[in-house]
């Protein structure tokens, strides 16, 4: 047989070490981008927000229209320069070049996830409708309470299936971290496989790992959707 099963086994254990990194990047990106994206969606939901709407639709279209790899290359070159400039201006005792690349990766992915998720949440808010917000205000809730108690639970449960796709896309996109030398699943195997040129074996292994992770995420969202059924918007 052509495939080197010994290498497949060893690369499986190597790749296992990358899974926490991939998941860390994914979870941190979601923690940053979900609140910001929701805030943007709420801000855009109001009436008479022409400039704001135009600004964000340009941002969304730019993120949607350019490959992630190009975004990575641009932001990864620009951000350290920008940070260095700010730090030198403020004379902070802080070395820019000591920042781990993982944090750059998280910032870059947040940049694109915020755009996608803000669109997702906008659709969710539209599904709930403005009447409920007005009803909540009329019933004596504050604006903030109306959102946290009435609007947000319904909007979130309405968009759960789309959110699941977005999370899976994020996990898939995190494989591009190899471009900035982050040691997540793909990065580790790329380096290990280039040593003895067993690319096929290595990539078959991580393909299986990605499929398993994504299916696990889908399963989690299925369970979540079942739990969130109470909040389902009745159309």
């Amino acid at each position, binding site marked *: 047989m052509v495939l080197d099963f010994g290498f497949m086994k060893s690369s499986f254990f190597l790749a296992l070490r990358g899974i926490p990194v991939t998941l860390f990047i994914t979870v941190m990106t979601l923690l940053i981008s979900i609140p910001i994206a929701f805030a943007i969606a709420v801000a855009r939901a109001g009436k008479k927000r022409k400039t704001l709407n135009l600004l964000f639709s340009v941002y969304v279209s730019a993120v949607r229209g350019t490959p992630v*790899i190009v975004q990575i290359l641009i932001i990864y070159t620009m951000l350290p320069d920008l940070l260095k400039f700010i730090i030198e201006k403020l004379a902070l005792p802080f070395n820019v070049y000591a920042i781990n690349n993982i944090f750059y990766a998280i910032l870059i992915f947040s940049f694109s996830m915020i755009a996608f998720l803000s669109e997702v949440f906008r659709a969710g808010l539209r599904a709930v409708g403005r009447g409920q917000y007005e009803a909540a205000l009329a019933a004596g809730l504050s604006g903030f309470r109306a959102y946290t108690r009435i609007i947000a639970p319904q909007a979130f449960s309405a968009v759960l299936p789309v959110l699941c796709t977005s999370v899976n896309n994020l996990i898939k996109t995190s494989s591009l971290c190899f471009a900035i030398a982050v040691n997540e699943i793909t990065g580790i195997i790329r380096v290990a496989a280039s040593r003895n040129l067993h690319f096929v074996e290595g990539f078959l292994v991580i393909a299986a790992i990605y499929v398993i992770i994504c299916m696990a995420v889908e399963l989690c969202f299925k369970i979540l959707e079942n739990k969130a059924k109470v909040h389902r918007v009745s159309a």
Partner: protein
Amino acid sequence: MFRYRLDVAWEYLFKLLPYLSVTLFYMGGALTIGIVFGAFMAMMKLGKNRPLKYFAIGYTAVMRSLPPIILIFLVYHGVPLAVRRMFQVNLSGMNTVYFVILALGLSSVATLSEIMKSAYLSVSGGQYEAAVSNGFTPFQAFRRIMFPQALRVSIPNLSSALIILMKEGSLGYTIGLIDIMGRADLLNSTSYGNDIYEIFFTLAAIYWLASILIDGGCHFIENRLSLERKIELNEIKKAGMIAAAEQGGIVRGS
């Protein structure tokens, strides 16, 4: 710390643009594979044959969770290996663009089969039965009744799928494909990273513009295919003519 020279960027624009044809070539190739085999796979999903149905569903699930970079690598390294083993044919001299087309095609079969399936299901089955009971053959019913309606429903999704194809294809540069992204990477290394902003902002602008054009084009086609739109347009035309006649030929006064 940050300099952006417009004249340099302008120069790079003309160095990059010719390679857009490579990008369009693999988009077209992958789309063709996707439409042809995606149609079969959509039929498998809608059909009654259990094993075929589960195969199609499983294939889609796997393709949905594979990162494009891994698919491209697997095809680039795996296909020549398999072909050499089975047919004793050496593929090492083959143009990389065909590997990219194959990799993107494999994933777009899954995407397009889902798009076609949901578009077909969005047209109510009663229409097909009505057409058949009016004397259409099953093929005619599909061709004349179901297909035009399904096509219109699927166009926004098709536009997204095309943009995704364009973006995923940019990863072909990792296996040495010289498309617009590969060319930018090459230019960046030959200029020792000095012109990185000029090159990559120009590249991003080209991709952005291309995606806006794809979106706009699909939107235009969608409007042209819309039945309501046709009726509306006729009414506007009629109203315009009446108004023009009333005002003695002047349609817009102020």
